[in-house]
């Protein structure tokens, strides 16, 4: 195969060496080369937010981000969020407990967007929450229980003193 480039990606704290054509998106490499299928593929044009991952703590649409650009950066996918202690992250717990999940297809992207929001702003207002997730479509919930889940996560994380 021609056009293949060796690249190194740091994903969820682990180093991965992969050979990819330079035009492959981070979404494609995560899912197809590395089997990290928790990142979902939907509209593939940056409108729905299902493919969201964090790059150096900032949410991006991995369908619009070339894998080669992600070299040298910290990539966090949904698989990496709760790896450290085998327990779910508080954000994940809040999504489950507050009914923020129905079909679940938007969930990984929304959980990571919440993570990014709460790093920057541990005590967001309802409006700030809605702004932070405006790039994420959800057809099941009408967003209300997602907003409640994010509020609950912020409250619980503040109480536990975790970030």
């Amino acid at each position: 195969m021609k056009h293949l480039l060796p690249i190194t990606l740091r994903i969820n704290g682990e180093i991965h060496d992969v050979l990819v054509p330079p035009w492959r998106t981070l979404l494609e490499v995560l899912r197809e080369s590395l089997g990290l299928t928790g990142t979902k593929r939907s509209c593939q044009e940056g409108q729905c937010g299902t493919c969201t991952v964090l790059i150096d703590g900032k949410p991006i649409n991995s369908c619009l981000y070339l894998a080669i650009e992600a070299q040298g950066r910290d990539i966090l996918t949904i698989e990496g969020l709760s790896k450290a202690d085998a327990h779910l992250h508080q954000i994940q717990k809040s999504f489950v407990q507050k009914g923020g999940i129905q079909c679940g297809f938007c969930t990984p992207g929304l959980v990571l967007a919440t993570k990014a929001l709460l790093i920057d702003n541990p005590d967001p207002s309802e409006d700030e929450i809605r702004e932070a997730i405006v790039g994420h479509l959800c057809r099941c919930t009408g967003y209300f229980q997602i907003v409640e889940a994010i509020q609950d996560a912020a409250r619980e994380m503040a109480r536990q003193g975790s970030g």
Partner: protein
Amino acid sequence: MDEEFRNEYNILGRPVPKKDGWLKVSGQAEYADDIFLPGMLHGKLLRSPHPHARILNVDISKAAALAGVRAVVMGKDFPGLKYGNIPQTRDYLPLAIDRVRYIGEEVAAVAAIDEDTAEEALDLIRVDYEPLSAIFDPEDAVQLGAPQLHDHAAGNIAGHSAFHFGDVESGFAASEYIREDVFETQPIKHGMLEPHACVGQWDSSGKITLWSCKMSPYVVWRQLAMGLGIEPGKIRIIQTFVGGGFSGGKQEAMPMDFCAVMLSRKTGRPVKFVHTMEEVLTIGHMRHPMKIWLRTGVTKDGKLQAQHCKLTANGGAYSSIGQFSMYLAGAMLNLPYRVPNIKYEAQRIYTNNGFCGALRGHTIPQICYARDSQLDIIAENLGFDPIEIRRRNAIQQGDTTSNGFRITTFGFDECLERVAEASKWHEKRGKLPKWRGIGVGCGSLISGARLMGHSASAAEIRVQEDGSVQLTTGSTDVGQGADTVLSMIAAEVLGVEVDDVRFPRVDTDNTPVDPGTFGSRVTFWTGNAVKRAAEDARQQLAEMAAQKLRVDPQDLVFRDRQVFSRKDQQQRVGLKELVRWGEFHLGRVIAGRGAYAAGEELIDFRTGFGNLSPAYTPSACVVEVEVDPETGHVTITGIWGADDSGFPLNPLAVKGQVLGATVMCIGQALYENLIRVEGKVMNPSLRAYKMPLSTDVPKLADVEHISVITWEPSGPFGAKEAGEGAGTGVLAAVANAIYDATGVRMKSLPMSPDRIRFALKQKNEKESAGKGSSVAAE
């Protein structure tokens, strides 16, 4: 009544988080696109660029020769058998053979080593078409001499439904006020975020396996068999997680499913297909756009006397379940109101557009939009408060409607009362500042339908030696919470915890046959079947416990994973121990079975008479809006909804479903529209097809969902439909609120800024053309 039931049940009635939430929130839930099998190939579909054409020749030679392409199939690789839902209207083919009828119809398919190669190969397939004249508007399609889409459907009539109950002429004669209006609705898409996806395998023994995100796997099982001309026993459908359903094609076999298995047969490899969002938005499956003419007669005291409805639906190129769609809109025309005389005439017309079918609420939201908009016009002209006119006509428990619906529980009065209270209706109506308004809309839904085909549900339960419970049904969780509520029912009966119950997804080789998820049937029908299966298992356990404890089985109580005698609570055995004892000493396998069929009676679709569902839910919705007169933009500032879902078994899930359905209908009311020009979808992307965003819905403090609790005797533990029905009144509620805010009556959807601006302009022109005094109305 509420508290009484909550106290009686150990599990039901409490908010229980979704069972599969842990998998979904950690990215471990495997959807169809997440399947990567060894040697798997990737498929792509070639689609017709013409709205109507004859296929003269398909040349696949260049595509087949492209490096990386493993196989190509076209229509004639299949046996030419039509498949579909209703026997008289089956008109789907796996791939078109000699004719295409809409832009996007599937013509050929390629399997290659990757998606890019498959895509490239599509460009190398040469199809010679002879374009035929096409029709897009149903009114043109029924004219003499119009191009005909299907040989079996003269005049392009894809389906019709007509009935007459009571006598509308005498009803209108007895009316003191008669109103006629025409309403139009638009095509909208389901908007599920997971595109259709499947992996197909046809092995050398002749066994076909399809992994796919199906809402109704057994429907797919039968349809695949039908279209392939083989026995269903050779087919195995394995349901994956479903990333949103809403009947957006995942309830049926689709061309991709046929092509995946056929390409697998040709290559000996599993083949995956995943639609792009452009494909999802281009192909058929959408809500029927309709033109609804409605004539309603009413007495001076606001009592509805007669309704006559003529409806034309633009059905698109194929039937889907359209015949039923037409019946349903008329059958639900008057619900939740008493109307003694009803006449209904509906036609679904074939046109060269993507075809229409079911979508959350099916054809009920459209009819409720027309009827409840008109009801507000009537109320205004007769000087009634909109809630008062609804109250005066409310169907009551024990009624039989003119078309034979037997109304059991129906807390519609309470829905109206409580939604008025929650929204502060009486403080706000007529008293809001300029450009703000409040409106009400109501609707009703069935709790599953008695259909001509497969209606009944089945469930099986095994209690295992660790005390855990394996619950299998052919019904599916599509995110609505079936996994959780059905597990809750089993746990309630068996005295275990919800976490003790496993709910594997459907695998047609292992699960009981069941029609699947549609028409708000699962909690009610499958819930009843699960309850009976659990009771059967409990009976088997009770017999063993009675033998072991030497007590009367009638006295046994199942609670906290224990079985004990209510007469002497010391007489007890752990469930785990009991099952092991039975296995070891008696060779017993605890396997309970349950079924639910809601009686034998069926609707007579020729007359429209009959009791469609075992139970009906009413709902009432109040919406408050603010309209920007400069831009025509509508902001929803508050939503209050009340619905009677019997006894809500899992209030957390009911709330999520109800609010989700409400927001989906706000999307239809204000933003969404699949724009077609000469059959071509002009906005096939989520950028251009506008669904509600998190910032488009009101703040939490301005949103309330009220469960009106009735005790539905035929429902499992008192439950009825929840979620789908709550959307039915929303379209009219928004239209009525916009009228209250602006004085413009929006009779077509969506009520988008441009249309509102135009209507305001027209109103102003009309008023200035009239007297100067009308300025005061501003």
